């Protein structure tokens, strides 16, 4: 049984690609066959964050159009055994992704992979809908900032109406709130929305909180998913997110203060 997970947010720049890369890497580190797909046709960036930009030959759109096979297009990660990347096309327009084409590729990937992570483009247009359409679960990446929270709410609305699960009256897409770029100090001072505030507004279960961290930029600079940086607080937080996603009870080892804050108190 495979699970399709969309990483989405509505707003741009909140950390979707960082999260897709870190989360997929985390799943693979736990031994799961995992592929991460870049849905941002025309503005591909997952390859850069994953550090495989020079190994891209065929892409997602090539596979849909039959110009290359899936095996030619997916890139095996050199650091983590069970991790693969399907890059987006850099040249085509966004309409190149068709529902039928995306369906065929995802069905083919399901034969090989346990987890298929879909990195959504920003916005609520065609590309974002394609990324979420076949999802079983969704990570809604949200910054503690008004525009991001509002856009996340719009995306939550679309997840319940514009997906195959909605169209076919199946169980709804399972939603997880992932708060990124969180600064506990500023929350304590009262000048940043708290995780509880965001949960109150969006009313979906919290999967985890990623602290604002210098290591995220350092990771992207070097093309290494932040979960591979053992010294990174953000990387550790992503690993906890992965464990929690896999159904484990995660004791809030690091950053006791900031995690016990919400998981402890209601």
């Amino acid at each position, binding site marked *: 049984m495979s699970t399709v997970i969309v990483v989405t947010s509505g707003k741009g720049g909140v950390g979707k690609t960082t999260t897709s890369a870190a989360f997929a890497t985390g799943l693979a580190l736990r031994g799961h066959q995992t592929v991460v797909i870049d849905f941002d046709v025309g503005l591909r960036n997952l390859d850069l964050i994953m550090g495989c930009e020079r190994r891209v030959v065929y892409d997602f759109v090539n596979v849909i159009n039959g110009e290359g096979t899936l095996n030619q297009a997916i890139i095996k990660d050199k650091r983590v055994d069970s991790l693969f990347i399907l890059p987006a096309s850099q040249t085509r327009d966004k309409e190149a992704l068709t529902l039928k084409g995306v369906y065929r590729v995802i069905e083919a990937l399901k034969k090989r992979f346990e987890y298929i992570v879909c990195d959504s483009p920003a916005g609520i247009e065609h590309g974002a809908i394609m990324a979420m359409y076949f999802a079983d679960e969704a990570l809604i990446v949200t910054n503690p900032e*008004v525009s991001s*929270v509002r856009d996340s*709410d*719009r995306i939550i*609305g679309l997840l319940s109406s514009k997906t195959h699960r909605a169209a076919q009256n199946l169980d709804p897409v399972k939603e997880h709130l992932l708060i990124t770029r969180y600064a506990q100090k500023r929350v304590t001072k*009262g000048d940043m*929305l708290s995780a509880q*505030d965001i949960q109150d*507004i969006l009313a979906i279960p919290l999967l985890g909180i990623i602290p604002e961290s210098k290591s995220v930029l350092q990771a992207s600079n070097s093309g290494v998913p932040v979960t591979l940086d053992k010294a990174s607080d953000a990387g550790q937080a992503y690993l906890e997110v992965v464990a929690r996603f896999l159904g484990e009870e995660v004791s809030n080892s690091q950053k006791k203060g900031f995690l016990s804050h919400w998981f402890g108190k209601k």
Partner: protein
Amino acid sequence: MNFLNYFRLSPQKNTASLAKERLRIIVEHERRLHNSPNLDYLPLLQKELLEVVRKYVAIEDEHISIHLERNGDFEVLELNITLPDNDNSRKDSGKS
């Protein structure tokens, strides 16, 4: 000095709660808008109803609210007009 600091800091101190309150209102509003399929006509309906009521009673824009709710198979259109307490606000229809 302390007094001045108090005033300088206070507007910043509660921006998070201000953000939350603004979000609560706009998100609730937008959910209603997007969750109901035929809501396009509501703003216009609201505006025209307001004009009709204003022929008789002086009310402000915020004194009328209109909601469409779905209850299973049927929809409930709820119109709420708050009339001013003051009797003077009633217009004399003969003069106007």
